[in-house]
């Protein structure tokens, strides 16, 4: 549609296209030009080819020499007296301007599928506004009020507001190193060797009616090129010391070894949503992601066979996890007894409240649609089974936990959603956003809220409204909302934004979006979005944990929330997913903070990436 002089100015460097037929001899005005906001859709629909088009600033005031029809890009041969183009918003100038403040936070968000014809019907979802263009979601901001780089200045400016940070509680992790895992007559740890009792499998099998078989494979780095059934979970092996409760006190953890749960049903059908990460381990694992194994670690891999047909029912995956946990529990018992002298490293996580700082909360949406879309919350042992409550049984309502409970393994992830976006149990143990926010002295992280994602829309809005109410009570200045994966959980993801945003609280959203996970809905509060995508083509690439939340995403999100709380606008996202948005935001953050951000690798670094390249890129 025709644009105003104001819009023309804002889009001075965008291509000039006639919105309607214009006759030779007219002087080109803003009213003759089409709104550049719809060009992407038009190009997608094959209606527009912008090759050779002059920019809007060039053609304004020039004379049209030929009668042209609507949607005709104005090229040099039909325009007389075009102005010389100015420098497109001189990047140097922009940077200088942004320099004193920390720049630009992140983002890239979701655009609907090509052609702009993605249509989602949401029945009676009353709080959902489907009209909002997805193009309005996110973008990088230019400057921020909160100034991490200039922290000294901020302190000087507001010394009165400075109040003492208050230590709430601490969590200590004692690390024990394991270099070898063997089978033996009893489960024990000798030095750096872990022995797993031979025959323990039978107890595992007998413990669960639905489990028909359980095999243990010890996978050393030399065995990484081994076929495996779909990976259901990756878990740290950790236990509480003495009477300490999860989330405080001392936790003992084994380094160099992780539990890995895999399985099929008795007919050989993969457990989990749809087998898609089965195959050779080294091709299917994105090493080093918070939820994934590190290269060099030994996997204690269980391959569980559950009763045929229960692979898609709720009891099946739970049984597989429970059976596997018998092994972990036996190791935990040994770990508890290990001599302090074997501790190789001790780290302490302190949870501070920081009065006077902007209070923020992290809302983590977890799957709760049923079956393997479930999570056990707050087991007694880190990532244990016992004591954990399935969030589906809790009705998916929000559950408040402390940041240290998250880092101490309060989530046992039964989820078996797309491997690239699933947050494994280990992910929570190393949750980057919680760590980043916990350690950031400029914000006051008050806690973490887990909220399940139910299946039915009405229930989604039910839990979402509770989230909003809690945020209101907490009186927070800002909130993060994260979700794993994509699909109908984006409906509640959007609703959380709305419920929190409508209370005047800035929200930064984090999700895998890119191409395949494009948000299905949006609303006016979804203005600050960080895309967790890492894959080259922006898709669920079947590589374990590839597209999950990483430190680089956490840094961007924290920066963005600070900007949002400081009242800075964030640029609207581009119509289509553009990975450059992220890289330019990362650069901006680096240049302001002076700290380098090492971006994680993606699937292209894995063996056989050539084949994957052929398939996807």
């Amino acid at each position, binding site marked *: 549609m025709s644009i105003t002089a104001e819009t023309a100015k804002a889009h001075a460097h965008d291509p000039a296209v006639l919105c309607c037929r214009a006759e030779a001899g007219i002087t080109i005005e803003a009213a003759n030009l089409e709104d550049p906001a719809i060009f992407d859709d038009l190009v997608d629909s094959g209606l527009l080819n912008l090759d050779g088009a002059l920019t809007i600033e060039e053609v304004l005031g020039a004379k049209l020499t030929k009668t042209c029809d609507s949607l005709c890009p104005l090229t040099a041969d039909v325009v007389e007296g075009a102005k010389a183009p100015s420098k497109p918003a001189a990047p140097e100038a922009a940077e200088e301007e942004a320099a004193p403040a920390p720049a630009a936070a992140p983002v890239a968000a979701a655009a609907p599928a090509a052609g702009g014809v993605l249509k989602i019907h*949401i029945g009676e979802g009353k709080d959902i506004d489907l009209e909002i263009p997805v193009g309005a979601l996110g973008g990088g901001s230019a400057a921020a009020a909160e100034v991490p780089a200039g922290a000294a200045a901020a302190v000087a400016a507001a010394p009165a507001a400075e109040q003492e940070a208050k230590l709430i509680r601490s969590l200590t992790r004692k690390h024990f190193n394991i270099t070898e895992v063997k089978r033996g007559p009893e489960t024990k740890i000798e030095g750096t060797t872990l022995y797993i009792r031979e025959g323990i499998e039978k107890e595992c099998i007998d413990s669960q009616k639905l489990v028909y078989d359980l095999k243990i494979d010890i996978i050393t780095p030399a065995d990484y090129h081994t076929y495996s059934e779909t990976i259901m979970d990756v878990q740290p092996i950790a236990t509480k010391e003495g009477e300490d409760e999860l989330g405080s006190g001392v936790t003992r953890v084994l380094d160099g070894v992780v539990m890995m749960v895999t399985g099929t049903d008795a007919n050989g059908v993969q457990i989990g949503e749809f087998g898609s990460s089965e195959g050779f381990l080294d091709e299917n694992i994105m090493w080093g992601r918070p939820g994934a194994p590190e290269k060099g670690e030994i996997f204690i891999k269980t391959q569980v066979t559950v009763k045929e047909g229960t692979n*898609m029912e709720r009891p099946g995956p739970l049984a597989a996890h429970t059976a596997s946990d018998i092994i972990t529990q036996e190791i935990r018992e040994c770990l508890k007894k290990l001599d302090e002298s074997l501790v190789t490293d001790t780290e302490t996580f302190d949870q501070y409240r920081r009065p006077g700082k902007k209070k923020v909360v992290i809302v983590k949406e977890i799957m709760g649609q049923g079956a393997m879309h479930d999570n056990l919350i707050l087991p007694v042992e880190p990532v244990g089974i016992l004591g954990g409550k399935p969030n589906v049984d809790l009705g998916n309502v929000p559950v408040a936990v402390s940041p240290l409970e998250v880092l101490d393994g309060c989530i046992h992830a039964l989820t078996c959603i797309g491997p690239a976006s699933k947050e494994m149990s280990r992910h929570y143990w190393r949750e980057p956003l919680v760590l980043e926010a916990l350690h950031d002295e400029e914000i006051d992280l008050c806690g973490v809220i887990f909220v399940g994602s139910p299946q039915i829309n009405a229930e989604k809005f039910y839990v979402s409204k509770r989230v909003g109410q809690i945020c209101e009570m907490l009186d927070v200045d800002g909130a993060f909302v994260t979700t794993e994966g994509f699909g109908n959980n984006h409906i509640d993801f959007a609703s959380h934004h709305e419920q929190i945003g409508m209370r005047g609280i800035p929200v930064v959203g984090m999700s895998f979006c890119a191409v395949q996970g494009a948000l299905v809905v949006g609303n006016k509060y979804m203005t600050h979005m960080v895309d967790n995508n890492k894959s080259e083509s922006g898709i669920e690439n079947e590589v374990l944990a590839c597209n999950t939340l990483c430190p680089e995403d956490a840094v961007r999100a924290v920066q963005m929330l600070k900007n949002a709380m400081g009242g800075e606008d964030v640029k609207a996202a581009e119509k289509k997913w553009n990975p450059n948005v992220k890289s330019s935001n990362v650069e901006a953050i680096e240049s302001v903070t002076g700290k380098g951000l090492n971006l994680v690798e993606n699937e292209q670094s894995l063996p056989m990436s050539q084949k994957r390249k052929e398939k996807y890129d």
Partner: protein
Amino acid sequence: MSDLKYGDKIIRMEGVIVEVHDGSVAIDLKGRLGYLKVPMRMFISDYPIKVGQEVAWNMSFVEQLGPEINEKYVSNLDTYTRRQKEMREKNQNNKEV
């Protein structure tokens, strides 16, 4: 994606729910056009999900991305089907015993 020739040919498809599992829903496409099984989170529902409910969605056609065969997937599939066969037989034998 740009490599799709007919990606923008969106057609409305209707189907009937024929299986409801805890984690997925299976749908027969009306008009003998196939069968689709989707995980719960890719299914948007306003009501409790029941067999026999009608559903609809927009989709396009499935196109090949090229003539090449990805050996990785072939090998995975071979392994997977072989194991399934073995396990089925074993499972069968177990029951007979």
